[in-house]
């Protein structure tokens, strides 16, 4: 008994003392969550680099009501069609965040990295230096860090090189190994994802910041909306898609691969894409605090747009309606003549490790999606 208690106690204390993220740890509860912010907090720490979205997909499945009929495609996208009704609105969000892959292991145990997709902003590589990262190995999530030279021994030339001419050749990830064999013994393999440490920052006025926060928030809003609509008659025929590999382009197209794959798999007639757009970047950009952003793929009447605008009005939620915007995911549907609309969260410092969003926008997007689907305006 004493030793059992000791083990329990030790486990509890170890858990309480842990300061780093443990994204791979499974939680037993699988209750439906309709609170977008709660879903966001649950999924935010889960790494989901392009082509490696399986951990996030599993987490979303875990959070949605038991018995939900999920489907997948061979890219890793997750599909949930509600009810037996005629295909109606399809609501999608991207699961993948930007990240690096392990491209090699040096003889002294450091990892080199490569970029499989374009970075969110050109300076993104510099965000690796001197900060902790996560390395997603098949044995679990490892803590690592982007090596930074000691400041005391940094020459002027080296300092200028780091400031102005940084290349991936100068970046090494330290996972605490002293040799290639040690790194491999930790489970590190070539192509393992390397992503930013998921540090969620709480700001004033109901704002929050973190890496890939806008994209994770869009995913969370979609999950919260879906969670509330499962089993409702009005939602029958609606399909929800958490897309994988949207940061890659489909061969021969500028549209995102994940979106093209979803389009070809389910042939939707009407699409609502949940996304993120840069805020506070000049006169024509949306502002943080102005509510979710709405724009459509093609000019002209749109049943999806009408449904979204009516839902926002019904809920008393502000929208920022913009024109002239597009995204690679939107292109995939608009180019095929599909009625496609984007409902996006505005994000300040978009594409940096501290994307800032408003908490209330997460729930606003979830509520608008729920009301738009429940209204039955898109059939």
């Amino acid at each position, binding site marked *: 008994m004493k030793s059992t208690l000791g083990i329990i106690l030790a486990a509890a204390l170890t858990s309480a003392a842990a300061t780093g993220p443990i994204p791979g740890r499974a939680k037993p509860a699988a209750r439906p969550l309709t609170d977008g912010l709660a879903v966001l907090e649950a999924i935010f720490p889960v790494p989901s680099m392009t082509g490696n979205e399986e951990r996030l997909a599993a987490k979303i499945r875990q959070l949605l009501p038991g018995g939900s009929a999920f489907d997948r495609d061979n890219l890793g996208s997750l599909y949930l069609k509600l009810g037996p009704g005629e295909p109606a609105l399809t609501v999608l969000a991207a699961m993948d965040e930007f990240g690096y892959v392990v491209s090699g292991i040096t003889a002294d145990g450091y990892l080199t990295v490569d970029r499989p997709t374009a970075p969110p902003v050109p300076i993104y590589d510099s965000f690796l230096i001197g900060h902790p990262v996560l390395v997603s190995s098949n044995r679990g999530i490892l803590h690592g860090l982007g090596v*930074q030279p000691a*400041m005391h021994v940094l020459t002027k030339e080296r300092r200028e090189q780091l400031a102005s001419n940084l290349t991936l050749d100068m970046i090494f990830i330290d996972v605490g190994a002293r040799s290639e064999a040690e790194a491999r013994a930790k489970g590190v393999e070539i192509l393992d994802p390397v992503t930013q440490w998921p540090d969620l920052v709480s700001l004033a006025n109901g704002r929050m910041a973190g890496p890939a926060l806008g994209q994770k928030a869009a995913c969370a809003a979609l999950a919260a909306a879906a969670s509330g609509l499962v089993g409702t008659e009005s939602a029958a025929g609606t399909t929800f898609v958490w897309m994988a590999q949207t940061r890659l382009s489909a061969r021969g197209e500028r549209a995102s691969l994940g979106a093209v794959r979803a389009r070809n798999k389910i042939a939707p007639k009407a699409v609502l894409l949940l996304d993120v757009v840069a805020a506070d970047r000049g006169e024509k950009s949306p502002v943080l605090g102005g509510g979710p952003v709405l724009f459509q793929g093609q000019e002209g009447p749109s049943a999806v747009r009408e449904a979204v605008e009516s839902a926002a009005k019904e809920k008393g939620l502000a929208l920022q309606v913009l024109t002239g915007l597009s995204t690679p995911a939107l292109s995939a549907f608009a180019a095929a003549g599909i009625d496609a609309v984007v409902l996006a969260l505005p994000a300040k410092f978009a594409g940096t490790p501290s994307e800032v969003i408003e908490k209330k926008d997460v729930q606003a997007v979830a509520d608008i999606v729920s009301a738009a689907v429940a209204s039955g305006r898109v059939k």
Partner: protein
Amino acid sequence: MRERNRGTGYRALFFLILWAAAASAQTTSDWDLLRQVVLVPGISGQEAKVMDWIEARLPKGVEAKRDAKNNLFFSAGQGRPHLLFVAHADELGMTVESFTPQGTVKLRGRGGFLPQACEARPFVIHTSKGPVEGVMLPRPDYDARAPKPFSLEPYELYVGASSEAEAKALGIEAGDQVIFKKKTADLGPGIMATRAVDDRAGCASLLAAALTVDWSKIKGRTVTCAWSVEEEVGLNGAAELAKTMKPDYVFAIDTFVSTDSPVENKRFGYARLGGGAVLRALDSSNLVPKDELRKVIGLAARRNIPVQVANSRGGNDGSVFVAGGAVDIPLSWPGAHAHSFVEKVDRRDLAALTALIRAVIMEFE
């Protein structure tokens, strides 16, 4: 009956948890002390919380003192030689300087960081009302194809406020200390990286060593253990101590700036992490006489304590005592990525340092 048994079990578990929590709070392990003290905020000039934390854990029976600059120390024994051990408690950081009409907070940087490592990263302002989190503004053209380099000054923090009044309502005041939001990366059993390992590892090691000594039995020598302020901004705390203390030997307990990484030249500064404590024989402020160095090497050998001898850069608190007649022998651990947000330390090195400090306290001739 079953309910009563269950209640008894819960009570037992509750008291066991209380006991374990109390035991945990009074840990004497250098590693556990480091993991706790590294999280206590204390930039140069605002070290009070760190000093309070250390003072609360000092060995029973010693008389803790503070001087005018808030250096913390205690002494035991009497006569000569006088051995002084000093670790600095301050860390790199910034202070609040002013506000913009848009509600961002302008900071005064005190140097030491790689500027672009601060860009778009979270920091914490420690106000009298509690911590307030913020994000360092990225360069204005951060999303441009060819942006300008991130500039050193002025650092500006976005806290979510939209006006100066909103920012002030959060409790932020000019002079508040601002530090990087610390995250502890565990790179394996006994290897961690975070901000302020320099010199909280030294603070923890000196404290852990002190906790192993029966101070009432120190005879034929005077031993002083000190935790200094303002090392990072000019060895100011040590200079204050030097006004009244004239030790024969001073052992600065501080980081050995190691070049044990793939991005550094190993011509100097190479002490391997995991290779043991370091005798910092030469740095930017001090050169240890070889015969004195050999005494410590011999002592470590007799105690089977792994040590490395190396030279690097940076100053140390002990150097301000040299002009007064002291021999400065800095005792260190190899620290990689010094003055970054991921200063890396190996538990084995810290254990060796703690053992070496204890050995010097007890046996140094």
